[in-house]
């Protein structure tokens, strides 16, 4: 199996190299090569899965890939249920997005560069999934960062895109800094960086990490905080939406940002209970913060970006609550429906000539029916409506929270309300309400190269809950203890109902509102409406708006400002000051040399 897996891994790399070297000038050939490589990888993944069916086949290819003293790194692939399923998700969703891109990017100037970047990304992502040890994972981890940087900055002529790319890369590096320290500490404490050996050691002696166990776990978690955009390093993800929409779908919704969660599940055994509770709270905090922010957004991609943040928070919280299988299940279903949502948004943006403001859309329900219905399916899945896949995974997370941590259960339920609210706000305003702009009223359905991937993902979104994905994850990661399912389900459905009603009242009647004013007849009805509006206005201002503004302010000034900007500012300032030493005067230099030598003398000899 291992050679097959290696072929799947290197196929996209070969495609990236081929495009970069030979077919830069020929867009269609580049696209063909890239799509072919992705489909090939998908077929091989399916083959592997069909052969193994979730059985574990650990294979080492080169036991001494890198040996430096007693530090040995082997090179190989991990093929257990976890990586097999993840392979399928990455290559499956990836292939759909590759095909879709061919339609979406057709008019772009540098299609070849785009597809080379996509292939490079697929290679790096598959590398993370198949990694057998921390070093292998870290190398691909960085490569994923690089390819994400290249794709966010695809439209580099736009300063905002270049800045967003840089911000994403640098923010990730801060997380990686901790991650690397964590890896070094694991190696120092356990003497190995192999996932399987780590698992063996930790199973034999759960306290093997010693007193620094919690710290080590949290350092490793830093990697996830960066890559999966958790609070407080979440700032890069919304900006990353500057990239082309298929990139947002592939990298910043379905796969790369999930790599952090995947990594947590891979080394779940490393984390002490204290570390897990920190992880759970950070996940929960991210979920509610991001959901609040989503309510305030008007850009269709940004709404989805904040929604992704919030769902990633769910997953991280599930890991923290001791349910890696649950987290992976939600990761999988989320990959399906969030990719679908982004591709649907892309289809709308494409049809409206790159208009992204939802208040300038409207009336798309009838004009773009495939896009609308698939978008609606994905929305229902995201909101956790049965029988869509999101219902099953979300229900598991709620049940998990109910069983382990009551406050987090409350938070998760509130997030569920907010999720339904902002998603239906989007659907109602953009699709159902009448058209509010010229491009919107003249929109056409996108070509079938774009709608087919939508349909494919919609099928996955509908079927994802029934085909036993959760059982397979439980095989790999162990069964999770859940709380009372009925209560959780009731909470989830109740949240959906509340959110839907709120969204409907506020946004569907926005047009009806103006109608009634013109009619002037139904005064009492109007007053009632007014009352609700006022009530909501008040509620909105004092709860959501305030909270969202505070969160936004905190985000912009404290985290981005003091944290990231402050650090880089301090470095730049330090550099600027130190530079002043280089006066260009030889005698100053000679004086400094003499003084330094005298200082060393005084300190060490006398």
């Amino acid at each position, binding site marked *: 199996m291992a050679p097959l897996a290696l072929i799947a891994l290197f196929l996209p790399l070969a495609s990236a190299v081929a495009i970069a070297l030979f077919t830069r000038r020929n867009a269609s050939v580049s696209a063909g090569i890239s799509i072919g490589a992705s489909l090939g990888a998908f077929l091989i993944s399916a083959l592997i899965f069909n052969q193994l069916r979730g059985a574990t086949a650990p294979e080492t290819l080169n036991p001494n890939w890198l040996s430096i003293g007693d530090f040995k790194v082997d090179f190989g692939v991990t093929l257990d249920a976890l990586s097999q399923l993840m392979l399928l998700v990455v290559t499956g969703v990836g292939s759909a997005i590759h095909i879709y891109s061919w339609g979406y990017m057709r008019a772009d100037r540098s299609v070849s560069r785009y597809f080379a970047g996509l292939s490079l990304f697929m290679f790096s992502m598959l590398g993370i999934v198949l990694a057998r040890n921390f070093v292998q994972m870290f190398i691909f981890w960085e490569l994923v960062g690089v390819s994400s940087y290249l794709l966010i900055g695809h439209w580099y002529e736009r300063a905002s895109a270049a800045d967003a790319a840089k911000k994403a890369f640098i923010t990730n590096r801060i997380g990686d800094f901790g991650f690397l320290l964590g890896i070094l500490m694991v190696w120092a404490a356990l003497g190995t960086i192999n996932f399987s050996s780590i698992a063996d050691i930790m199973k034999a002696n759960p306290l093997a990490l010693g007193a620094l166990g919690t710290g080590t776990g949290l350092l490793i978690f830093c990697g996830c905080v960066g890559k999966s955009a958790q609070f407080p390093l979440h700032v890069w993800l919304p900006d990353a939406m500057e990239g082309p929409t298929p990139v947002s779908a592939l990298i910043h919704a379905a796969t790369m940002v999930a790599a952090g969660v995947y990594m947590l599940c891979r080394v779940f055994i490393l984390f002490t209970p204290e570390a897990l509770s920190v992880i759970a709270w950070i996940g929960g905090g991210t979920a509610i913060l991001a959901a609040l922010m989503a309510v305030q957004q008007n850009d269709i991609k940004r709404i989805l970006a904040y929604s992704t943040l919030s769902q990633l928070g769910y997953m991280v919280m599930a890991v923290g609550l001791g349910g890696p299988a649950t987290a992976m299940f939600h990761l999988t279903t989320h990959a399906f429906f969030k990719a679908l949502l982004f591709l649907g948004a892309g289809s709308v943006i494409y049809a409206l000539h790159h208009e992204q403001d939802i208040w300038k859309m409207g009336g798309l329900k009838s004009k773009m029916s495939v896009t609308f219905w698939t978008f609606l399916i994905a929305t229902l899945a995201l909101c956790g409506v049965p029988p869509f896949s999101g219902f099953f995974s979300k229900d598991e997370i709620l049940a998990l929270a109910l069983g382990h941590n009551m406050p987090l259960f409350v938070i998760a339920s509130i997030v569920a309300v907010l999720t339904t609210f902002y998603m239906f706000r989007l659907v109602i305003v953009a699709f159902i309400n009448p058209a509010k702009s010229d491009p919107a009223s003249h929109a056409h359905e996108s070509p079938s190269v774009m709608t087919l991937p939508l349909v494919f993902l919609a099928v996955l979104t509908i079927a994802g809950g029934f085909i036993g994905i959760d059982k397979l994850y439980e095989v790999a990661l162990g069964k999770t203890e859940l709380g009372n399912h009925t209560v959780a389900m009731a909470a989830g459905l109740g949240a959906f109902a509340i959110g839907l009603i709120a969204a409907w009242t506020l946004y569907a009647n926005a047009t009806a509102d103006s109608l009634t004013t013109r009619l002037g007849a139904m005064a009492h009805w109007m007053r009632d409406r007014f009352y609700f509006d006022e009530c909501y206005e008040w509620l909105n201002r004092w709860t959501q708006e305030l909270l969202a503004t505070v969160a936004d302010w905190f985000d912009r000034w404290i985290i981005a400002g003091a944290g990231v900007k402050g650090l880089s500012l301090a470095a730049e300032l330090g550099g600027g000051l130190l530079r002043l030493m280089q006066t260009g005067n030889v005698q100053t230099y000679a004086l400094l*040399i*003499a003084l330094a030598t005298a200082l*060393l003398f005084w300190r*060490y000899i006398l």
Partner: protein
Amino acid sequence: MNLQLITLEVVVTLIGATILLGSLWLPADKRRHLPLVAAAALVVLLIAHCFAMGVDTTTTLHGFGGGIVQDGFAICLKRLFLASAAFVLAMSAPFVERLRAGPGEFCALILFALVGMLFAASANDFVMLFVSVELITVTFYVLTSFQRHETRSLEAGAKYLILGGVATGLMVFGISLIFAGSGTMSLREISKLDPLPNLMLFNAGLLLVVAGLGFKIAIVPFQLWAPDVYQGSPTPVTAFLAVGSKIAGFALLMRLLRHTSRPETGFLLDALAALAAFSMIYGSLCAIWQRQLKRLMAYIGISSAGYLLIGVIAMAKGFDGTKAILFYLAAYLFAAMATFTVIGLISKEGEDERSEILNGLHKRSPGLALTLTLSIVSLAGIPPLAGFFGKFLLLQLLLEMAVNNAAYYWLLGIALACIVASLAFFFGIIRAVYWPSDVALSRATAPAAPIPTSLPLKISLAICVTGIILLGLQPDVFLDLIQETVRAFRWQ
């Protein structure tokens, strides 16, 4: 007398003399080929030394009254020096028209500096140490100021002259104090003395010699000359200064510390650890603002010296640091040579090498752009290229040292933070190469024509890139190679 120990030095001197004489006889238009001839001769010599000359890497030989030693470490370093001089001569070939003075003299001086470096690799007493350092330094006084028609080259020469003179003074005075404190000039005898006749004089002398060598390797606080001199010198000279001279300084420092390291001189290692930290911080922070490419390389060199000091300290403490240092040096050699070659090719005569000259390089010469990117990525220490593994090996040594002395965790933290900070310059360059802003492009005066690159330079760049990639992806191949050479290597 054991003449076979200095075969390489003799042969290189002869090549230099031949070139010097040859340039007298050759017609003027043929002289510009001299650098390539010299480079080819060095390549042949390097290959012969590796495969044909029957050099036994596993035994240690002494000669010339103990002044010269040949062991695996010296042999590895000599090969690095030969390679770097060959790269430098290759990049001088398109550069000779700008020199306005004899290309023959230029090549000969580079070869003579190389002889100094080869001696430095073998120096085992203070006389040899002094002579080899001065052979390098005095030739560099001439080389840095070789473009006499350019003010900045003269200025660089004068600055190097004055500050180099100060460093020489410190070093000679240090040697005299060591002599006073120990009664011998031989490093081997010093390592056998117990106790030392006069510890205080010895320590003071040691500190001064380390200061003198610290000037050569450009560590804080002896680093101030580097940016100015790097900027003003002709680009091939800067490359040789940044690679050859620096490696020679490290070779001498390592031998010196290895032989003198004992509990009474432990203070020196503490001092060097502090200097390493300052060098890393200074180099990475100053690089953030720097837009002059050769100055930027100076700052990269300063922080690299900081990382390398970690290995030197580890080695002096008895850890197996030789491999890590040699690996880092090799990675640095390839990346720095490739960068300087590209800078030399892009900059026009008399032009200040600011990063604007890189604008749109990707459109003009994709090959050069890719080479530069790979080198910079390697210098910044991003996996999976050579520079990453070099830093990784050194940090691993630091981790081993930290087991016994928790203070080294601080150094580890600083080193990691500096690696992150050094990404800033990486972005500046990559952005200029691939995504120049429209404003910058419109300001560019010259039309974006491809940059002509001669075949020898293409070969030398290809070798550098292969080195960077191979060292990164298959580090153990190179490590095994070094292992083979330094296996039987016991410091004697």
